[in-house]
C-alpha cells in the first residue's frame, strides 16, 4: 500500500493533488472496515470511490476486461464495472 488510508484523507485535507498519483485508492474493495473503526465516523471507502470517480470522469476511461475470469459470479463483474467506470 503506497498511501495509507489516513494519509489519503490527510492529503485531501491539505489539498495535495499528489493524492491522485497513489495506487492505494484503486485497491479499495469498499469493505467498510475503515468506517466501522473510525472514531469520528469517516468513511474512507467513500473518499476512495470519489477519488476514483474524479479520475475516471476526467480521463473518461472505461474498464476493459479482455478475459473475464471464468465462473466468476456475475455479482463480481457487475461490481467491478460499477466501481471502476466513470458513472
Amino acid at each position, binding site marked *: 500500500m503506497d498511501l495509507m488510508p489516513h494519509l489519503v484523507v490527510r492529503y485531501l485535507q491539505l489539498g495535495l493533488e499528489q493524492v491522485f498519483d497513489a495506487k492505494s485508492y484503486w485497491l479499495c474493495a*469498499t469493505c467498510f472496515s475503515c468506517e466501522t473503526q473510525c472514531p469520528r465516523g469517516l468513511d474512507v471507502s467513500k473518499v476512495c470511490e470519489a477519488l476514483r470517480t474524479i479520475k475516471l470522469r476526467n480521463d473518461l476511461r472505461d474498464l476493459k476486461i479482455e478475459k473475464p*475470469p471464468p465462473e466468476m459470479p456475475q455479482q463480481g463483474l457487475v461490481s467491478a464495472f460499477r466501481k471502476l467506470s466513470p458513472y
Partner: protein
Amino acid sequence: MQSYLYFPGCSLRTVARDFEDSARASARALGLELKEMQGWLCCGAVFPNVADNVMTNAGPNRILARARAESDTLVTLCAGCHNVLKRANLQAKRNAIKQEQINEFNEERYEGGLGVLHFLEVLRDRVGFIAIREAAKTPLRGLPVGAYYGCLLLRPFEEMKLDDPHRPSVLEDLLFSIGCMPVDYPKRTECCGSFLGVGAPDAMALLSRNVVQAARSHGAKLLTVSCPLCKYNLEESQKQDPKASSSSGPLPVVYFTQLLGLALGVSPEDLRLSDTQLQTIRGGAKSTVESVSQT
C-alpha cells in the same frame, strides 16, 4: 406453512444454484416457504458510494416497489444483494429528495413500508435456534467449521445492524444449533477481496488466502459463507497457489444453508453438495472430542 417473499438475485439463479436450492430445501424442512417475488431484477451488486450517483438506485427501488406490492417483508440470501436492498430501503426512508428523484424516474414508486431481512435473521429471530436444534435430525456432530462473514453482511454497521461488526455470532450460533463446532479465527470478518479479482487478482488472492490460512491454522476443516462471490474468491485463491493448500488439499467452501439442510435431514443431492464437500463434512463430523484434540 409460513411463507416469506424471497429475492434470489442473479448469481443464485446461475452459478450459485447450490445456495438457492439448499436454502429452499432447508426452509421447507423447517416448515417455511421461500416464495419468489414477481418481476425481480438484478439489484446492481453495489450500493452507490458517491453521492451524485442516483442511477444505481433505480434497480433496487424497482425491486423494493414490486416486493412491497406483494408483502411487507423481503428475504434475501446473498450478502451482496442484502446489503444493496437494505441500504436502498434505508435511503428511501432518510433521503426524501433523492427518493423523489428515483421515484420520478422509475415506473413504479416505492413509498416505504418494506422490511428487508437476511435469511439468517429469519432463522435467528423468527424460527429460533432452539427450534432448529430440535429439528436437526442428523446433527453434524463436532464438525470444525469456520464461519466466514465477509463484509457486506455486517457493514456499514449503522445501516446493516445485523450483528456486532467486530465479533458477530449469528453464524456460529446457527452452526452450534446444528451440532457443529465452529472455529474462532481472526479473519472471519475481513474482506475476501470482493470484485478486485477482476482488475487486481493478486490483491484478491492475498486477502482470500489470509482468510483461508487463518481458518485452517485454527483448526477449521471447511469454511461456510453467505455470498457467491466470497465462495468464488476463497476457492479461486486456493486454486491459484497450490503451495498455499496443505497436504490435505484445499479447504472446501460451502454455503451455510447446505450445512443447515444436511443437519435437517435433506439429501446431499438436493443440497447440490459435491463429493469432496460431502466427504469433508462426513469426515469432520465423525470426529469426537478426542479426535479433535489429536489434530
